[in-house]
């Protein structure tokens, strides 16, 4: 009897501590959002409420719009995903289904090692390898462009995505795969019709997390994308992402409207990443409910 009391008391304490931690985390996240809104207030009171989001960036002419940066961020992260998703799917499929044990093991270890390479190393390699190559091949501009950043960014987010995909594919119940084999399915058919549909919740989580990482990455776009604050109309044009814009303008005069614009960038980054996380959450829960 006494032991049970103890148990429930310690359980209540644990629940309270964990609850407090959750509330603190939620309040802090909310506070950051409010803080950014407050600090971007000068721009909003300057009579530019929505113009900030749709205008171009020309501080000397008094325009502090961040549309070019929003465009660049979205183009860069979705482009990197478009490259990285097929590569990651192939890699994960090789490790879990198609590959012989030894090469599969090697690839898995290799991918795990790749996740621990710091971003700045990718950026560095990009500056001395990717940028000159793109410049020589494309012959349009300095080689610092969306394409260079996109290639390196895709390389950076692939390992994380591969690990997520491997986890998702390995959690597919063995019985399903065996049943498909018994019905005469080959490896490709098993992959397409059994593994992929069963693993889709994990796959989607991996993709959305990778998108968040690509969208929030600063260093690669700062070093490779060229940072011209112009709406990107081609893969070969110099572009400035929201994160690079923050890094470049953070040193400006504290009172200036340039400085206020970086908080609007922060709000946009925050909103997009929050939307992605919420989408991942709801998709995941819906898919898990429908699971056979």
């Amino acid at each position, binding site marked *: 009897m006494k032991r049970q009391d103890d148990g429930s008391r310690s359980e209540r304490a644990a629940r309270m501590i964990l609850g407090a931690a959750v509330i603190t985390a939620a309040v802090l996240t909310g506070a950051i959002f409010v803080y950014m809104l407050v600090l971007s207030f000068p721009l909003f009171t300057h009579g530019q409420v929505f113009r900030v989001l749709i205008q*171009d*960036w*020309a*501080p*000397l002419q008094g325009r502090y719009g961040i549309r070019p940066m929003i465009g660049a961020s979205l183009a860069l992260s979705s482009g990197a995903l478009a490259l990285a998703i097929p590569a990651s799917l192939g890699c994960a499929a090789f490790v879990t289904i198609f590959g012989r044990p030894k090469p599969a093991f090697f690839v898995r270890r290799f991918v795990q090692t790749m996740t621990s390479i710091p971003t700045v190393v990718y950026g560095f390699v990009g*500056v*001395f390898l990717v*940028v*000159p190559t793109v*410049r020589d091949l494309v*012959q*349009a*501009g*300095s*080689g*610092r462009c969306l394409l260079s950043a996109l290639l390196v960014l895709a390389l950076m987010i692939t390992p994380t995505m591969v690990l997520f995909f491997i986890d998702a594919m390995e959690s597919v119940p063995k019985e399903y795969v065996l049943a498909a084999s018994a019905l005469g399915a080959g490896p490709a058919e098993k992959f397409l019709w059994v593994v992929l549909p069963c693993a889709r919740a994990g796959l989607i989580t991996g993709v959305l997390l990778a998108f968040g990482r690509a969208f929030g990455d600063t260093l690669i776009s*700062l070093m490779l994308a*060229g*940072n*011209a*604050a*112009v709406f990107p109309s081609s893969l070969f*044009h*110099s572009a*400035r992402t929201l994160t690079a814009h923050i*890094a*470049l*303008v*953070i*040193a*400006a*005069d*504290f*009172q200036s409207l*340039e400085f206020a614009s970086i908080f609007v960038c922060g709000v946009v980054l925050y909103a997009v990443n929050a939307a992605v996380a919420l989408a991942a959450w709801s998709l995941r829960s819906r898919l898990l409910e429908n699971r056979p």
Partner: protein
Amino acid sequence: MKTRTWLFTILCVALCLPAGEVFAGAYDAFQGKEGTIKISGGTAHIPVMQALAKEIMTRHPGVRITIAGGGSGVGIKQVGEGLVDIGNSGRKPTDEEIAAYNLKVHQWALDGVAVVVHPQNPVKSLSLQQVQAIFAGTVTNWKEVGGPDKAIHVFTRDEASGTREVFWEKALKKGPVAATADVVPSNGAMKTAVATDPGAIGYMSVGHMDASVAAVTLDGVTPSVETVRNGTYAVSRGLYSNTKGEPSALVKAFLDTLYSPEGRAIIEAQGFIPVP
């Protein structure tokens, strides 16, 4: 362990004594002083700050000096907010900044801002009008200014750069910079960008230049220590170290060494012109 530390200290002091006698004065101000000096801001200042810090810290191990970059804007902001002891800037802080933060401004050098191209670029001389047209984006091919048939890649600096401000005011005469120009965040990044791109043009601190980039003669004047000193090269600026109010004794000792013969020698060795 403790005796070993003591022995090491005594050894250091013993080693430093003869040197201290030869170069009497400048570094003696740190005698018996201990503590940390935090420095941040202008990227042009960094080589001088590092060389000076090395001299001081080897002689007086009790003094720690940390040096960070960030750009002129960061330097002014961080010293104003009390985050660092010295905030460097490659431009004089504005009157508003001086008033808002109660800054004390110490100028210790003159620096030129040179137009730089890739060393293999045959164009070694440009007029001010040509430079303005290139940065405005109206001239886009090197053949229009006497070079090969190759596109010009324009590199500029970030919004908070003191180098950019001086270049924009004195070379571009506040003219436009093409919005499509690539932006790099420091003098070092500018050097890397121009050194690795045969079609590049950019601008950077004269003190930061080396053989990996080539300076362009502007209206017939080559940017160098001599031409900046005698005023014939007009695109120049002061290098400033700012403190919030009166500096502490330790920080003052550091600033004073910048004006001492030893400090001036370091400033000259890094390619700047000591002032006054």
